[in-house]
Structures are given as C-alpha cells and as structure tokens.
C-alpha cells in the first residue's frame, strides 16, 4: 500500500513536568506506516521543548494565545498554511479548542482537515455540566456544586460530608477536611481561575484513565490505564495498560451518548464497592497517548484517517500490560535557535 504524504500541524509541544499531548501525538503519527508525515509544531511559548526536538517536529510556528481569540489565530494559520500547505491540524489543548471549533469551517474551506466536536458537545462535558450529563445518561458523577461566595460554604455541610474536593473552574483540586480549609482553597482558586469554585463529593478509590477516540456515532478505540506513579502536580509519570471489559463498555456508552468527535480522556475513580465514577472528561488526547499506539491502537493516526474522510473500523484488541515510564532529559540546543523562535516566531 502506498504511503500518504501529509503535512500535519500539532499543538501541545510543552513536554514539561505537566506535559501537553503534542509530542505523544506526533510520535504516534510518525509510527503509522500508512503515512509519510511532515510535522508542523504550533507553540505558544519559546521554551516548549517540542520546538527543539527536530526529529519529532520538522518546522515550528508560534501561534497567538487562546485568549487573543479566533480572528488572530485565523490570520496566523492563514500565513502558516500559505507556507506549509497543511493537510490537517490536531489541536491538543483544552483552552484552544473553542477557537479551533469556530475556525473549523474556514479551515475546511482552505483544505485543512480537523476532526473535533462542536461547542454544544464540548460544553456538555465540562466541569460545570458533567454532573447533569451523567444524570441524563446514567453515569455516576460525584455530586457537584458551584459556589461564588464565602457565605455559601456554611450550607455545604447539609449536602456534603467531609472531606470535600474543592476545584478550580479550569484546573487544580484540593481535598478539604474542614470549613477553614474550604475557605482558604476558595480564595486561592478564585484568585487563580475565577468564579465559580467547584465543590465535589470525595470518592475514595483507585484512579483509572481511559484514552478514547470516537467518530460522532461510536467508539473507535479505547485504552484504559492505571497510573502507577503520580507527581505532586497530579500528573501520571508512569502507568500500565489494563484489561477490563467494564471500562471498555463504559467508554462505548459514553462515546455514543456524548456523540463525541475526536480524542478524549475519561478520568475515573473505581470506588471500594467497585462502582465507576466519572471524575472529569478531558476533551482531547492525554499526554500519555503514545502508550495507546504502543498497545496496538494508534488513535492519532486513526483520527487523521477519519478527518480525511477514510472509513475507519473500530479497534478490536490491544495489549494489556504495556507500560510507560516518563523521564526528563536535558536537550542541548543553542541560543541561536532560541533567538530564532523568539524574534521570528518560527523555527
């Protein structure tokens, strides 16, 4: 079979201690024997390690921060497309998805394929709406409440037992054992992420994650994983692929009910009485996505095939017991490269 020559742009090159998924996505694409890929890295910061990994990324461009809006992103992508003739883009950051969703029709008209959900589907799965989604479709989601003032803390004890989980609107979570701690975390999270602050029922159990790919009607693939080592930032630094039919069945139902298009990660908690709770849904591939390819399901490559209009059948198997162990590495570069990306926005 002839290999398909493709130029694919990928974001999330921040392979740091709280890594973006870009490098894992690119490794997966490079592993696919059906493709001969040229990879264009899209970065926000000049020190994203992926920029300097020249065997991973062929050429990089800086793009405007998501907060700058879709118009600025459009103009930058227009420039990049003129130079690189992109075939597809895989966005990998939660915060940039809304802009890419808005631009998807424009990108399509330029001949750039994407495969992402729409705004309604994206919103249904965010922290603010997941509990309602769970209730509607029969998934267990910890009881959740949003508070916007200190006064509301007083009433929480009527609805929740201690400990409670106190979460930021976008990121960060703490476990509070008393009212004083809730108040302290409320101020901290409000200052960083704004209101409301999320209060969630604490579920004791084992953390499991599933990386999934869905085509809008059904699940195309799912790889469940147990994190074996978690950093102080709550990121998995090592994990092992699990074999568990209950997890795959849950992913299938979730893909069907959410009508999700593209990659996503389910963060689950298996309670001591064997119940599965959905703690959070990440609307993109996780940083450990290359483990899925290593276990036999190359989700990024399958996503590109779907985006290009090819028929992709659901994966049937994978290899349990595949592990990842993340490591840090001092990549040596030169100030001239840093200078180039800083001054020209290209490398």
């Amino acid at each position: 079979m002839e290999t398909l020559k493709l130029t694919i742009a990928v974001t999330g090159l921040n392979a740091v201690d709280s890594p973006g998924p870009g490098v894992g996505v690119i490794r997966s694409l490079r592993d696919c024997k059906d493709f001969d890929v040229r990879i264009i890295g899209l970065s926000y910061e000049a020190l994203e390690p992926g920029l300097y990994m020249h065997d991973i990324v062929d050429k990089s461009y800086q793009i405007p921060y998501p907060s700058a809006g879709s118009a600025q992103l459009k103009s930058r992508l227009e420039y990049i497309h003129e130079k690189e003739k992109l075939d597809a883009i895989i966005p990998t950051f939660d915060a940039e998805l809304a802009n890419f969703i808005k631009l998807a029709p424009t990108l399509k008209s330029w001949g750039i394929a994407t495969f992402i959900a729409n705004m309604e589907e994206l919103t249904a799965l965010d922290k603010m709406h997941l509990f309602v989604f769970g209730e509607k479709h029969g998934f267990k989601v910890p009881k959740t409440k949003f508070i916007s003032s200190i006064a509301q803390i007083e009433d929480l004890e009527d609805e929740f037992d201690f400990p409670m989980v106190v979460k930021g609107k976008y990121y960060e979570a703490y476990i509070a054992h008393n009212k004083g701690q809730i108040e302290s975390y409320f101020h901290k999270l409000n200052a960083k992420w704004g209101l409301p602050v999320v209060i969630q029922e604490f579920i004791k159990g084992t953390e499991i994650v599933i990386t999934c790919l869905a085509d809008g009607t059904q699940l195309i693939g799912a790889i469940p994983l147990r994190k074996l080592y978690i950093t102080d930032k709550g990121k998995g630094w090592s994990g092992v692929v699990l074999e568990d039919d209950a997890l795959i069945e849950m992913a299938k139902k979730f893909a069907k009910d959410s009508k999700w298009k593209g990659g996503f990660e389910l963060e689950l908690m298996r309670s001591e009485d064997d119940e599965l709770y959905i703690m959070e849904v990440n609307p993109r591939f996780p940083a450990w996505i290359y483990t899925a390819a290593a276990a036999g399901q190359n989700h990024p490559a399958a996503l590109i095939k779907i985006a290009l209009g090819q028929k992709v059948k659901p994966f049937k198997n994978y290899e349990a017991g595949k592990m990842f162990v993340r490591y840090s590495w001092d990549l040596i570069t030169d100030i001239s490269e840093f200078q180039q990306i800083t001054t020209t926005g290209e490398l």
Partner: protein
Amino acid sequence: MLLKKNIAVSSSGFIFNPSTGDSYTVNQIASEILELLKENKSIDEVKREILKNYEVDEKSLNEDLNDFLGHLRQLRLAEDGNA
C-alpha cells in the same frame, strides 16, 4: 479455588493483575502453587505436590497454604470455584 483467568504469573514469581494494574512478587514455593492453580489443579492436588517436593509436615502446610489462599482472595487474584 480458581486463579482468575487473566492473572499473569511468571516463573520468577512476578504476578500481574491486568484488571487493576497491581503487581506482586512471591517466593519460589508460592510461585509453584500459583502455577499449579493456573493448571486448574485442586487444592488437594496442590498439597500433594508440595508434600512430595518439600520437607514439610501436613499441619504446617495446611496453615501456610490457607493463609496464602486467603491473601489471594483478599487481593482479588483468585475466587472460589471448582477446580
């Protein structure tokens, strides 16, 4: 008693439970017992094998084996059933 089907046991005494991601290491005798259970041998057959191969009295074996099997159940590596 049955060792759960998907439990992987290596000859070096490493056990991996792919349902939970947990792994354990056991000593040589425990490893042999697990191998015998994997071959669907009954508890009586396991006892006979161990008594044949090791210098151990039946009472001590019964105590230690029950203790070990209890651990396997507790860790959900084995379940009661007919072998």
